[in-house]
């Protein structure tokens, strides 16, 4: 820290993120005492006294730590100095930053603050290298290091975002979000969980008369979860805009919380065209990005382009990344591998059917309800796996190796640039050996040592593709096009 004038503290809103727990600890027992035992004044004082002491200690520690945190944007990188007892200081060079995320929530926007996270390929599992809260001026100066001349922007309309939210939402994640909130609210108002189920059942549903009571409640809960999930996704993806800024890709999105993700173009490990069964049958897919440094980004934070027609998604991705995504030599998954693809859903269906049938016999639950609740998810899984088997392939291209396979209930078409490939493993099980099939795993350059797998390829078709990829990969590395 040579130049003291330039050294800055973080925005004071940073304190609020650290003080959330202590404030909660201070407030919650007080509220509980006041609500449950309004006459227990001694209890209120005791709860307040003990928690005030603890909270005071946490607050003073946070303020001192905040005062001891300094940062400055130097010519070569971000310099950080932090810590009270254990002092530490370091410089993260701009050249090493692969993924930068700017996040502005409603409160931070009001107070002029921006949360910024910097990621490098450095191994700090499950957390970003630097996560700081800056004022607008500081964030602008940091963003200035990554903005070159704008080439082209891809903007998505609200209609398209709505479609993405509706088709890409998962009812279970929605339920996970709403159930605790509804349950806690119900507890506050003195409604039992059974009362809440009754409340859910009172909502109208077409074809409800044809369902048994249990199936009807399950269907209604699923619809509620799906609606909640879609609403959240709509707010999250609203105003999605992607710009190719010279050496980096800048994606902006969000209605309440605005998120800007800057990804280094040279650090792209793979481009993934994701589609579920419904979106695949509609000819739509979304594009997400795997890049060195963005491994710490989870879930939809990786998304580059929302749901769009496959051809236009491909065109936009090519334009933004500068990669040629066409295929040259291609090997499809053999139809003989259908069994290996559908084995997992079939076995799971068999096992759970036997367990639930036994329990229905014991508990007296109707056979129709049990069948309905079980058949739909497993049939969906099985159909998806058959579709995945028919659509999966392995190919070479001009700039990338292409690997299309399923991961969970998503079909992923991965375009992996040759410089990002660190290894290819060809393996054969005893059953595959007999049929002349093989599985191929492609490892990519990433801080999490990520690898993508495809199974059920014919060995004689896969071998020339593997050798072609290795040849291209070696040629790229000799040219110095490594990440």
């Amino acid at each position, binding site marked *: 820290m040579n130049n003291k004038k330039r050294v800055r503290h973080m925005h004071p809103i940073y304190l609020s993120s650290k003080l959330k727990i202590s404030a909660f600890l201070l407030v919650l027992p007080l509220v509980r005492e006041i609500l449950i035992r309004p006459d227990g004044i001694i209890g209120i004082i005791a709860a307040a006294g003990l928690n005030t002491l603890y909270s005071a200690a946490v607050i003073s520690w946070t303020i001192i730590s905040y005062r001891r945190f300094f940062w400055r944007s130097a010519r070569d990188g971000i310099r950080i100095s932090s810590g009270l007892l254990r*002092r530490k200081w*370091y410089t993260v060079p701009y050249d090493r930053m692969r993924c930068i995320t700017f996040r502005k929530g409603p409160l931070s926007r009001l107070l002029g603050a921006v949360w910024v996270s910097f990621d490098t*390929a*450095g191994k700090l599992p499950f957390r970003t290298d630097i996560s700081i809260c800056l004022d607008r001026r500081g964030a602008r100066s940091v963003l200035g290091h990554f903005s070159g001349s704008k080439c082209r922007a891809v903007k998505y309309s609200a209609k398209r975002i709505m479609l993405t939210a509706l088709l890409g939402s998962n009812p279970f994640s929605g339920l996970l979000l709403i159930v605790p909130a509804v349950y806690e609210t119900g507890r506050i108002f003195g409604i039992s969980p059974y009362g809440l189920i009754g409340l859910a059942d009172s909502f109208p549903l077409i074809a409800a008369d044809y369902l048994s009571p249990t199936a009807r409640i399950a269907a209604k809960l699923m619809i509620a979860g799906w609606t909640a999930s879609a609403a959240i996704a709509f707010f999250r993806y609203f105003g999605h805009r992607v710009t190719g800024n010279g050496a980096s890709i800048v994606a902006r999105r969000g209605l309440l919380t605005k998120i800007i993700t800057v990804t280094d173009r040279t650090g792209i490990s793979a481009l993934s065209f994701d589609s579920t069964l419904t979106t695949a049958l509609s000819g739509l897919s979304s594009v997400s990005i795997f890049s060195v440094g963005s491994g710490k980004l989870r879930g939809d934070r990786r998304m580059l382009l929302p749901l769009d027609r496959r051809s236009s998604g491909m065109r936009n991705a090519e334009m933004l990344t500068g990669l040629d995504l066409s295929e040259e030599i291609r090997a499809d998954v053999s139809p003989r591998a259908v069994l290996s693809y559908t084995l997992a859903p079939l076995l799971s269906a068999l096992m759970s059917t036997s367990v639930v049938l036994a329990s229905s016999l014991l508990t007296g639950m109707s056979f129709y309800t049990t069948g309905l609740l079980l058949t739909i998810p497993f049939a969906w899984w099985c159909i998806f796996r058959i579709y995945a088997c028919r659509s999966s392939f392995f190919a070479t291209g001009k700039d990338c190796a292409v690997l299309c396979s399923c991961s969970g209930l998503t079909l992923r078409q991965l375009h992996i640039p040759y410089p990002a490939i660190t290894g290819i493993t060809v393996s054969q099980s005893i059953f595959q050996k007999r049929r002349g099939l093989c599985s191929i795993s492609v490892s990519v350059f990433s801080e999490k040592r990520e690898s993508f797998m495809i199974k059920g390829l014919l060995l004689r078709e896969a071998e020339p593709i593997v050798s072609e990829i290795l040849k291209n990969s070696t040629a790229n590395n000799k040219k110095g096009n490594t990440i």
Partner: protein
Amino acid sequence: MEKLRENLISDKYSCVRKLRSCATFVLSLAAAIFIWRLSPGVGAAVIIISAMLFIADCFFLTPFWFRSLECCIMPDHIFVRKGVWRKKYIRILFPGIQYCIVSRTPLQRIYGLCTLTILCAGASERIAGLELRDAEKISIASNQAIFPERRNR
């Protein structure tokens, strides 16, 4: 090449380790006195075990551990050797280094030492017991690998 190697691990690091084990021993003694009041037998056992561990750490483990440590800056990489039972020889190539974190505890500050964490793509290495100027030297060397144009300055 081997003769040019200069071990950057400071001799003071051994003292820091011994002081740390002394502090741990004092803490465990305090805990043992507290336990003694509840159950004298368990308290005595805690005192004996902590004393044995203290002697083993201070007089056997720390000298061996310290002797096993080596850190050198080579022209194109950093060489690290450590481990008593399971020896580790690590070569960290400069181009693979993402950045370095220098940290100092109060005890290290008294002795003028620091800990250097080298973050590479896919791995990280922690080197304790370096003098501050040596840690800065490694930091600068890794920076020169990131920004080759600074090499001649």
